[in-house]
């Protein structure tokens, strides 16, 4: 069995946001693990997210020596929530309920899933 963390990292390396899906209860699972936290089944399979979602909660961190930056919780359309950051908009302007899309960037030498505002035409 491959490690759950590796499945997620492999996805990011391929520019994708991967999550687990439970074959027994048909629910999304995130973060990755070896049993379904909803029903206890081990029947978890990897899926790739559409990368679209909505901001559930947001904060702006103010630290000395660095510009203010955003941390958000995003409800991804496939039915799971993750911590991330919304870029492409001022940190203070990240709005709860705003539609966002995935952007896999590189930070600190590793791929990282962030989100950007979803434009109306997308």
């Amino acid at each position, binding site marked *: 069995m491959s490690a759950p*963390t590796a499945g*997620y990292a492999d996805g990011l390396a391929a520019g994708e946001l991967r999550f687990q899906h439970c074959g027994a209860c048909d629910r999304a699972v*995130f*973060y990755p693990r070896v049993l379904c936290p909803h029903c206890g089944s081990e029947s978890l399979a990897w899926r790739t997210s559409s990368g679209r979602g909505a901001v*559930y*909660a*947001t*904060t*702006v*961190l*103010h*630290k000395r020596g660095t510009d203010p*930056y955003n*941390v*958000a*919780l995003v409800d991804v359309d496939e039915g799971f*929530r*993750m*911590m*991330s*950051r919304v870029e492409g908009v001022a940190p*203070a302007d990240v709005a*709860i*309920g705003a539609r966002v899309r995935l952007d896999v960037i590189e*930070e*600190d030498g*590793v791929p*990282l899933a962030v989100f950007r505002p979803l434009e109306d035409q997308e």
Partner: protein
Amino acid sequence: MSTTDLRGRVAVVGVAESDLGHVAPGLTHFDLMGQATARALKDAGLKKSDVDGFFCASSYLPFPTLDVAEYLGIRPVYADSTNVGGSSFVAHLLHAAMAIEAGLCTTALIAYGSTQRSDGGRLVSPTKLLPYEEAYKPRYPVSMYALAASRHMYEYGTTREQLAEVAVAARDWAQLNPKAFTYGRGPLTVEDVLSSQMISHPLTSKDCCLVTDGGGAVILTSAERARDLPVTPAYFLGGGEATWHRSMSQMPDLTTTAAVDSGRRAFTMAGLKPSDVDVVELYDAFTINTLLFLEDLGFCAKGEGGAFVSGGRIAPGGELPVNTNGGGLSYCHPGMYGIFLIIEAVRQLRGEGGARQQAGTNVALVNGNGGVLSSQATALLGTAEALG
């Protein structure tokens, strides 16, 4: 046996703080636990050799009941180092009640100590964030509470001014408590809170608890034994615990905490309801906590916490006395604050609150919080009159 059989079977008979605030150079967290234990034993009229049950949690020690029992020179026959963060000591009340009722021990000591202010003024925490969260560099724990506040504001129209009211009330209470870190500093205004340094929006430094040194100790024994001691017993009427998540991204609904469950369990055991409570002691690590817990414990409806705390309702002279010692926001917060909730509740039940004493206090509620709204532990304590 049903859980309600624990009601009134044990009582808190000794409480004490160690030195608080910024303690003398070189004092360790062990020393603060030693001070608090000696003072609590004296308060109870008991000897150290009477202690045969030991409950301890620490951010410094993986095996606290071993290290601290050695320091204190006790050989507990029953020991419990349950660590659910700052709520641990409220959870210990229930565990101690069970152990005493089951005959596993007769006299239980709960102890805590921390020198986090002397250690550098930052929270001492062994917490490791999920890698799925750590990569985004939230500041633990404040950013997590900020996220909860943002959602409460979005769903219910709660304002930063309403959050600030919690800090204002806490500071007012602290002006009545000579042991409070901010005693003598005078009141805080809503504008003071809003204009303080922004830490993690919407929370400023004044929405955040203090970073102090401090220790505490609580001693329990059976109700029968308590009546023979030269102290007014504070009876354990009910307790409950609940946890729904550990990581903020896993919290099911950021506007509702597991205090809904822990509170219901405690009220059921005690046979009481929120309107029976005279004094409320809530773990106010951040201003949003007080709103959430007042709602989740049934003192006001979900979403109404902001309006509820406004206009001085929870401040001295208000309708509902909340955090009468000044709370983690203005009295003392060494990292795991829960034990101080118990100490203040017992003082109010005994009528030892001095300038901040609430007349006619027969029932006190304490609600401990651990992690990032992750653990909730509720207990109801009462006088002989409340015991009935």
